[in-house]
């Protein structure tokens, strides 16, 4: 009699624990999937930021005239690709913005970026 009672408590106890753990696992899964969506949104914003930072620097250096050298910090984890012929900056094939002038093709990564307007041409490079 005593053993039967103990057995019942154990089964009920395990069922309760299993239900709690199942609910917890479901909540954790939902949180991580929300986290992944948020991560994608943040990555897109970082790319937009990097793209517009390069675009604004090239525009400003171009407008400031020959002999201007300008440096800024790029903190993006991604690589930005500048296509001179098509005059655009692309970041990881996920975000692109136009450039106001032809700039030699280059890949730039995070760090200090130097934009120079020398001898009538604008050049972008990692400093």
């Amino acid at each position, binding site marked *: 009699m*005593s053993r039967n*009672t*103990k057995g019942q*408590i154990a089964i009920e*106890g395990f069922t*309760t*624990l299993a239900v*709690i*753990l199942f609910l*917890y696992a479901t*909540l*954790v899964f939902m*949180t991580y999937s*929300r*986290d992944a969506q*948020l991560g994608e*949104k*943040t990555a897109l*914003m970082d790319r*937009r*930021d990097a793209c*517009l*930072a390069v675009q*604004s*620097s090239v*525009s*400003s*250096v171009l*407008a*400031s*005239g020959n002999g*201007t050298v*300008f*440096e*800024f*910090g790029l903190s993006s984890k991604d690589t930005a690709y500048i296509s001179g012929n098509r005059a655009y900056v692309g970041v990881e094939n996920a975000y692109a913005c136009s450039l106001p002038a032809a700039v030699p093709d280059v890949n730039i990564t995070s760090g200090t970026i130097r*934009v120079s307007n020398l001898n009538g041409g604008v050049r972008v490079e990692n400093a």
Partner: protein
Amino acid sequence: MPNRIANNRGQIFSTDLIFAVSVFLLLLAFVWYSWDDLNYEMDRKMELSEMKQRALDISDALAMASGSPDNWALDPEGANSIGLVTLPRQLSDEKWSALAGMDYKDQKGLLGVGRFDFWLAVKSGGAVLNSTGLEPAGDFRVGIERAVIRNGEAQMLSLVLWEDYKSSFMTYDYYRGNK
């Protein structure tokens, strides 16, 4: 019979039951704490994401738009929205002075920073030439920089949105101290 009843009563308060309840409560406490911790981290990430979105929108508007009306600097109190340029990326000293001369609360309203605090600066070669707003406190912040032209020189317009995260979430700090 009386002995049997006494035995049954004894079983209710057995060590097994106390052990089972303790394990259950420990597990419940663990689940509660880790769920709370996960939520705290998610709140932080969402807050940063919103801050970044706002900072991007505001900095682009400041560096690319003239504001509404165009000549809002003549009557800052009548401004509907503000931009700091006359032409895209051509920073206007007149508009900068008009913004810097405003009350911080009015600046926040016109910039649309919402519940966040802000610090706006014009830099050249890393040195701050002019600034307005509140200098950031703590590391819960987002900074956006855009190149602009001022008096023919390329300079940097730097916007930082920040928040004293601990004081906005006092409940969490109560549990976590300096986290």
